[in-house]
């Protein structure tokens, strides 16, 4: 506080406080909520701004005058075909049902990850810490590899697959139209604030698919009396309705919202408790059970309910999670909104595990090794595939049709300016 009272730093401090509070890009010269800088909530979190000098140029907008003069929606498609004088954007994207993907979520959605190499003596090297600055400036999240908005090849094990990449592959006009509005600790209550950082103009932008996925923090906290601090079904209902009402006021007509249920975190204890944590592998002296107990003792456990040796407590936590998922499910049948249709899906943990088993893997390999809590890169990628298949099977209109001009777009615009 005292440093921020120093006159030359007042404005900088205000900006930093604003950024931290609102989770908006730190470097955003034109103030359109999109950035050409990767970290600090930049283009790792939402599609790269291709023009930082103009507020009216950003990913996800409907093209301005068919982008004859410039690429107003940053999808890499602009100009006029010299052969027939038709603007490329009109030719390739007019009937393509372009849409973006937006995640409203928690640390799992933002893809929290601490590389195990950072605490494994045998694997430590200059190279293993080279990604520390990116991790620090991305809040230890890796949204650019995540299952909903990931777009870069994973450098943290596994592979990258995401709903965004699949939506982009389906229709290349959707290039760069993604937003990862997530934060560590995101719950139905605090997402009400975070959602204010959503960048969607009802009049100017394309519709969007919003995935609402707060998969644990409504039942997870580090409090010793953890059950008393869990969100109640009534609170959940009220919070989610408020969020949906806000979305209805922001999303263009024709959007879609998919509510995801909470995960069943008993999986964590069942798979990990007797295994060695990376810190315990050298001397075989630290199991996940010890890590969980240590975090609970320090009152910094991300989830006392599930990261506990008390089976009754783990069951109670799952019971509440199920009740909250049922609230979400009930909302999708009882509520309607003018600007989007609404769907519910369970968090597909079992299906992800099944898919991994088919590939020869074991369940414990789906959990982040350092924190013993989050879904890891493999889970994220498999999750993307599972969710995509479900949506394609049950609600295909959500994804829009396949763009028949994809090949031509690729031929003319190559990688569309990259990501």
């Amino acid at each position: 506080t005292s440093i921020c009272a120093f006159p030359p730093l007042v404005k900088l401090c205000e900006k930093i406080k604003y950024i931290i509070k609102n989770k908006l890009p730190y470097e955003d010269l034109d103030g359109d909520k999109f950035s050409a800088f990767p970290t600090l909530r930049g283009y790792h979190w939402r599609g790269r701004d291709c023009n930082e000098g103009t507020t009216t140029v950003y990913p996800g907008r409907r093209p301005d005058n068919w982008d004859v003069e410039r690429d107003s929606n940053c999808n890499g498609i602009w100009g006029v075909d010299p052969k027939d004088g038709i603007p490329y954007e009109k030719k390739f994207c007019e009937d393509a049902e372009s849409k973006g993907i937006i995640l409203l979520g928690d640390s799992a959605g933002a893809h929290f990850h601490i590389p195990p190499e950072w605490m494994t003596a045998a694997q430590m090297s200059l190279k293993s810490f080279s990604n520390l600055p990116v991790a620090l400036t991305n809040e230890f999240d890796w949204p650019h590899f995540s299952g909903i908005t990931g777009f870069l090849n994973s450098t943290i094990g596994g592979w990258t697959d995401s709903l965004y990449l699949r939506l982009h592959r389906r229709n290349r006009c959707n290039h760069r139209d993604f937003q990862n509005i997530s934060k560590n600790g995101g719950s139905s209550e605090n997402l009400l604030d975070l959602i204010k950082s959503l960048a969607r103009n009802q009049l100017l932008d394309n519709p969007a698919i919003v995935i609402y996925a707060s998969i644990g923090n409504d039942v997870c906290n580090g409090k010793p009396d953890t059950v008393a601090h869990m969100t109640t079904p009534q609170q959940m209902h009220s919070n989610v309705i408020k969020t949906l009402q806000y979305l209805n006021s922001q999303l263009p007509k024709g959007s879609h919202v998919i509510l995801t249920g909470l995960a069943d975190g008993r999986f964590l204890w069942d798979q990990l408790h007797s295994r060695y944590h990376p810190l315990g592998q050298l001397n075989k002296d630290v199991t996940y059970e010890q890590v969980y107990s240590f975090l609970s003792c320090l009152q910094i456990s991300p989830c006392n309910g599930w990261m506990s040796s008390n089976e009754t407590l783990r069951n109670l936590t799952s019971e509440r999670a199920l009740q909250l998922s049922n609230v979400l499910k009930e909302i999708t049948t009882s509520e309607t909104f003018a600007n989007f249709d609404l769907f519910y899906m369970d968090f597909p943990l079992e299906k992800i595990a099944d898919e991994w088993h088919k590939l020869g893997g074991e369940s414990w390999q789906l959990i982040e090794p350092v924190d013993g809590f989050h879904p890891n890169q493999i889970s994220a990628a498999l999750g993307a595939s599972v969710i995509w298949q479900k949506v394609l099977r049950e609600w295909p209109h959500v994804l829009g049709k396949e763009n028949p001009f994809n090949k031509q777009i690729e031929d003319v615009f190559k990688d569309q300016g990259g990501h």
Partner: protein
Amino acid sequence: HHSGHTCLGCVLVVSVIEQLAMFHNSTAKEALERLCNYLPEILNLQGLCYLVVEMFGPDIIKLLKDKVNADVVCHAIKLCNQNAGQPFCHLYPPPEMGLNKAVREASRIVKNSKVLKNIAGF
């Protein structure tokens, strides 16, 4: 929460130093230097690491030389605290003599530490 995170950070870092020394068959001092050298220079991460080493390095080295585990080191250098009426939080199995006694003995080893006195004053 702050104190919990500080304690966790301390136990993680001291564990890593201890394991680096063990893995490379080196001293704790060499392991500390090795760890700082692994960090990138960007964001002054190496500089920050050396600053922390400057502050806590001598005490950590002394304690690790005495085969004290990371939990006990962090309690002895006051980065972990035992709250009134609460047990000692620990990651590793407690030493044979018990945590209370081990922490008392470790605290004696670093009782003349200037940094700890300054921290206590602060």
